[in-house]
């Protein structure tokens, strides 16, 4: 009889950190053939349009960056929280909190000097996301409420807060739809490249990668957050104020997700609508895991995801495969990556008895 056992292996050399994610992506793309074929799509044509749709023309390439921006921010948000083992599954609600607050400021700041408007909107969106995330952090640290459940449930609470406001005080006068008035021009993100939607938020999200990398690697806070994530009891006995670390982690994590909401509002929609996010907060979880919780990893995995999401639209148009294939591929990518990561630490030993 043959038995398989999973045993610990020697640490892999540094190049494996680069090779393994790439291998995971390749395997995911190969596995994607299954849903494509099930949908009756022509295989090579589908792959061609997937990549052509995302990278083939100048406009599409820039659109891929437009799509990557919120994914990058929510991915960083989740990665930053998970690193400290604050299980923030609530990036979606924090994104909405950011967009909602940015709308309030963006619509009503008409009488302020123009140069003040955008910074205020951005900071307000960041703080709103951060404060919304600090609720589950407080519940976790002070009242021992499970953070997975509370962050998840708060997503639905935020959706309904948004609904109540969009059908109420924030609703565009005269409209019967749940949508707000348009934000003023001074609150819009500048478009940085002609004939595209390449906006300032993309620069913000790339800057966030650097900032989070810096916090993680170069600051005592980054070290403490890592310690809390590795072993909260040891961190506590080592003299780290774990409550404060988790709260600050939540604030920054939620703030990043809030910025994603600000970007969607101020660069793309210009008014708040119920479906301002097609689940970027949830995709952020996969992106964070795929990037192995490292900011640079998150950067590449968010770019990979936006290629899939943008490309899937062209693929769908040209081959008839439903666009939801993008979600299926995202889910598969996560599971493949998890299994690959496992084998960086363990190996399978085959035993014959």
């Amino acid at each position, binding site marked *: 009889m043959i038995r398989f056992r*999973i045993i610990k292996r020697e640490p892999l050399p540094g190049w494996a950190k680069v090779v393994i994610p790439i291998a995971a992506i390749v395997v995911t793309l190969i596995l994607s053939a299954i849903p494509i074929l099930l949908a009756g799509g022509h295989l090579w044509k589908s792959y061609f349009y997937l990549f052509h749709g995302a990278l083939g023309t100048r406009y599409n390439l820039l659109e891929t960056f437009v799509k990557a921006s919120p994914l990058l921010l929510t991915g960083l948000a989740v990665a930053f929280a998970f690193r400290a083992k604050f299980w923030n599954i609530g990036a979606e609600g924090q994104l909405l909190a950011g967009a909602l607050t940015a709308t309030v400021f963006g619509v009503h700041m008409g009488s302020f000097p123009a140069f003040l408007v955008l910074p205020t909107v951005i900071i307000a969106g960041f703080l709103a996301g951060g404060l919304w995330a600090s609720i589950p952090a407080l519940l976790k640290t002070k009242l021992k*409420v499970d953070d997975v459940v509370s962050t998840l449930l708060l997503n639905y*609470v935020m959706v309904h807060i948004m*609904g109540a406001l969009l059908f109420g005080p924030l609703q565009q006068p005269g409209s019967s739809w749940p949508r707000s008035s348009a934000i003023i021009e001074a609150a819009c993100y500048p478009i940085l490249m002609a004939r595209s939607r390449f906006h300032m938020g993309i620069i913000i999200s790339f800057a966030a990668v650097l900032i989070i990398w810096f916090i993680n690697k170069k600051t005592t806070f980054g070290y403490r957050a890592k310690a809390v994530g590795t072993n909260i009891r040891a961190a506590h006995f080592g003299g780290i104020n774990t409550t404060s670390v988790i709260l600050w982690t939540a604030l920054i994590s939620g703030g990043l997700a809030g910025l994603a909401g600000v970007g969607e509002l101020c660069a793309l929609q210009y008014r708040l609508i119920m479906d301002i996010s097609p689940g970027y907060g949830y995709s952020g979880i996969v992106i964070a895991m795929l990037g192995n919780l490292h900011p640079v990893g998150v950067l590449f995995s968010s770019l990979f995801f936006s290629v899939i999401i943008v490309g899937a639209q062209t693929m769908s148009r040209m081959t008839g495969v439903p666009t939801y*294939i993008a979600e299926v591929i995202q*889910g598969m990518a996560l599971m493949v990556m998890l299994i690959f990561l496992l084998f960086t630490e363990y190996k399978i030993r085959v035993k014959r008895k």
Partner: protein
Amino acid sequence: MSEIFDIAFISGLIGATMRMATPIIFATLGEILSERAGVLNLGIEGIMLMGAMTGFLFTFSTGSIWFGVFAAACVGMLLGLLMALLSVNLGLSQHVSGLGITLFATGLAMFIYRLHFGSPTVPPIVEPFKQVTLPVLCKIPLIGPALFTQYSLTYIAWLLVPAMSILLYKTNIGLKIRTVGENPVGADTVGVNVTLTRTLCLVFGGALMGIGGAFLTLAHQNMFLIDVIGGRGWVAIAMVIFGNWDPLKGTIGALIFGFMDGLQLRLQSVGLVIPFHIFLMIPYLLTIVALIGVSRRAAVPAGLLKPYRREEKGG
């Protein structure tokens, strides 16, 4: 105001409470089974959505509603098996594998639905379950008619609650399950197969979650909408904690949630001035508040979240 709180309102509310609680009861029981064996299954939301979609699809295609329920249970079992493969056999983080399953199953449910139905302007519908009135019991004054005119799946859910309690507390299998959840090393020492027990609990737990999802598309509604689950899986996770990992207490939690959900629907229909989104929010808020109350005395299975690998103790 006063006329809305009459007998018709109250009996309507009782009926709605039972209806809205049914999917949560199924899901909570499924999650309790998994967690008692030591595995937190965060795939629940996705498994319910796949159950809802599969149940709808099979009922639509075959015309047999019970076949739809059966198919939903099978899909739940398959996804439970996948969860077991990732979190038990490979020993990956339970948090992450569960979320992965939810994301994967959510994408898959929408993908298959679109594949089969395209994007119709009017969503396709099925002939849903009919409510069944139980003889004798429905004669009980006041509450009888409301309580005992329910969908068959609701009655099944009621029967499953004591069944699950008996399974967990009164049978040899239940003892094994609880031992595996509390002390996997000890269970292994006395010859209980930890991997197999956890796998089976996830598989059958998944079946219950799938049926819970199918209730929403085959009884509560008669169509599949993308947001049909609406966080009910997460609510079930909360109810497990609220109910201290006990089937009966978890069901009480599910009934409270069902009551709030039913009340919200009733109050919407009588047209109060408060925006209905406020009511939609209440069940989720109350769930969080309930968690604050119980988190201090929660008796978490000691082996929960801990992957079990024989090798790690030197083999």
